[in-house]
């Protein structure tokens, strides 16, 4: 740190705290996906392909999630259909 750095604004967050915030978010996100089976992305793609045969949707219109609770797994599929004209 040189003499001029002492006059710089102190309000901006340090780069280390930005790094920590970013890491906490991405690591939490990746941990939540850690226990998902490997076939999930491909299954999601195939489900999208089937729906597309009938309805015009984009890949971002389908949310797929697998939740494991004790002795029961729930596959949640959320499809946003386009508005009807």
């Amino acid at each position: 740190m040189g003499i001029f750095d002492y006059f710089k604004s102190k309000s901006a967050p340090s780069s280390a705290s930005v790094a920590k915030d970013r890491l906490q978010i991405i690591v939490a996100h990746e941990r939540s996906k850690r226990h998902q089976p490997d076939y999930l992305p491909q299954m999601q793609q195939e489900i999208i392909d089937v729906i597309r045969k009938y309805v015009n949707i984009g890949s971002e219109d389908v949310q797929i999630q697998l939740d494991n609770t004790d002795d029961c797994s729930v596959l949640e599929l959320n499809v946003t259909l386009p508005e009807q004209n």
Partner: protein
Amino acid sequence: MNLSGDIALAKIIVVTSGKGGVGKTTSSAAIGTGIALKGHKTVIIDFDVGLRNLDLIMGCERRVVYDFVNVINKEATLSQALIKDKRTKNLFILPASQTRDKDALTIEGVQEVLEELAKEFEYIICDSPAGIEKGAQMALYFADAAIVVTNPEVSSVRDSDRILGILQSKSKRAEESKAPIEEHLLLTRYHPGRVASGEMLSVSDVEDILAIPLLGVIPESEAVLKASNQGTPVILDTESEAGLAYMDAVDRLMGEERPLRFLEIQKKGFIKRLLGG
């Protein structure tokens, strides 16, 4: 398969990280040497097939005749392939193969070699290759403990978290629902001055994110490059902060209490600070 407890006598420790270049081999060499210095018969195995480097760091590159893959393929016996360290008593190195393909390591082959080593050694240190592919998974599969080498830097921390996920799901202990692998965080290339000025993640930042017990913090040190230039594990440089910090980490690994040190900023003179040195 002989599982009569022979393998349980030896403690298998994998040194891993996910990311490359964070100091796995430097740490394997230092920690293996440190454990041997404490009187335990120790072998360090280089699992990086195709990119052998432990031999260079340990200064025994010209003594490699047979390697890990030769032993697995029964082209050489274990005693032919093991290199006895010339400086440190109780210490042996099993070099990786340099030319073979990555499929040369098989779970069965590795298990057989580990079981044979476990009859003779108290500690088996597995120096993992970078990545999360087969080589890295092979290095951690039989581990009882893992030392996760991490730099205070975003990509290294993220990759460490991924390797922790693999330790918890793809190891033998996980597959057999046994007690999980002991996890240890080793933070390397730490720069206290940059942490103080908010330019680098601190020890507690990394501990918060990874949430595993801290084994040690190795400060960024010129001694590490100097040691690798000379083929001497840095832990033997007892003049250097890095060497002493590694020795502290080994003591903690053996269950002794050691306060963290070398985390404070080295004071610079007033003039040097003014000039931004």
